[in-house]
């Protein structure tokens, strides 16, 4: 039901969605806007966990067993790419790949899919839109267009570097206060944190996320039913990939894509999704103590 509703909302976005910043990602609901692509993450996790819990076996999944998961991921993936929101689409794909590899695929199939991904990957370039190609070129050489496409990442790196060890103090970071940082309250909030709380604050935040990921895997390990284990791995993968992509993006280790930092970035849909996911994780964790 969650999955069907999420896909329905994605279709609504393409038809009635608000057009902002060159893409159509939000649905206006009176005074608030929601981003349905965020809810899709949890929907895909639950759908895949439900299927994998039934078919997973020690020999690994076969090509035919992967067909249904492929459809489940491909439908929302294509709808999100159409918005276009490559970052969220990539997170959905990475969650699905992480869960699939966790339940194991046949060795021959794994090699085959790996080969196709490596050889077919470069062809994705020809499917990208102009601004997406520009972001990759800027990632490779930020000085290519310092006042245009490279501006975001250059300002972000200046902010992170200027924080030094203990930071400049809350509200005292010039990159933030003088509005040099773009999207400082959403995707680039890590740069504000690094500028104002320095390496110590950034390290503490990343340490908390690391603890969350380790604890999520611990919950998965302790669960006695396959569904709970796989859903926990999916939720943990979601948090891990979002943090990894966001931090790598603002530090210039990856091209700029619109992925929020869980719990930290401003955004209702992101906050609600990640809290629902934590609710699921707490649920699985508590059920370890159910009597047989």
């Amino acid at each position, binding site marked *: *039901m969650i999955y069907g509703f999420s896909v329905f909302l994605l279709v609504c976005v393409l038809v009635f969605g608000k057009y902002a910043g060159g893409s159509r990602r939000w649905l206006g609901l009176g005074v608030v806007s929601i981003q349905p692509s965020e809810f899709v993450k949890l929907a895909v996790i639950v759908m895949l*966990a*439900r*299927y994998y*819990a039934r078919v997973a076996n020690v020999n690994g999944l076969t090509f035919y067993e992967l067909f*249904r998961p492929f459809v*489940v991921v491909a439908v929302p993936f294509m709808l999100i790419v159409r918005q276009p929101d490559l970052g969220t689409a990539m997170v959905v794909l990475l969650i699905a790949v992480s869960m699939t590899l966790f339940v194991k695929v046949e060795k021959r199939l794994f090699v085959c899919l790996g080969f196709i991904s490596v050889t077919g990957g470069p062809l994705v370039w020809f499917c990208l839109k102009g601004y997406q190609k520009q972001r990759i070129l800027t990632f490779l050489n930020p000085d290519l267009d310092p006042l245009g496409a490279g501006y975001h990442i250059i300002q972000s790196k200046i902010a992170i570097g200027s924080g030094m060890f203990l930071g400049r103090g*809350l*509200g005292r*970071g010039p990159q*933030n*206060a*003088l*509005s040099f940082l773009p999207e*400082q*309250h959403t995707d680039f*909030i890590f740069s*504000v*944190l690094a500028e*104002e*709380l320095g390496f110590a604050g950034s390290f*503490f*935040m990343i340490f*908390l*996320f690391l*603890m*969350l990921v380790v*604890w999520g895997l611990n*919950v998965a390990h302790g669960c006695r*039913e396959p*569904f*709970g284990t796989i*859903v926990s791995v999916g939720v943990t993968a979601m948090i891990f990939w979002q943090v990894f992509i966001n931090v790598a993006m603002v530090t210039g280790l990856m091209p700029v894509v619109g992925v929020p*930092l*869980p*719990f*930290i*970035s*401003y*955004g*209702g849909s992101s*906050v*609600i999704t*990640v*809290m*629902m996911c*934590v*609710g*699921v*994780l*707490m*649920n*699985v*964790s*508590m*059920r*370890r*103590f*159910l*009597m047989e």
Partner: protein
Amino acid sequence: MFDRPFVQRFDWCLFGLMFLLGCMGLVVLYSAVTAGSDAPRKLLVVRQVLWYGAGGVLLVFFFCVSTSCWSNGPM
């Protein structure tokens, strides 16, 4: 039935990590939207707190619904 009381089976570690990250997020967000601005957008912080409230309600819902409800169904 559970073999221990709620206080013992509740995952306080997970809750604590989420609480710490949420507080850190609100503090940094407040700084991001107010620092050096002639027209601070404090409303965004209030909205984020409200989103946390809504998220909290959904968290309780997903925490309470049995996982067996989701593990059975189409697919």
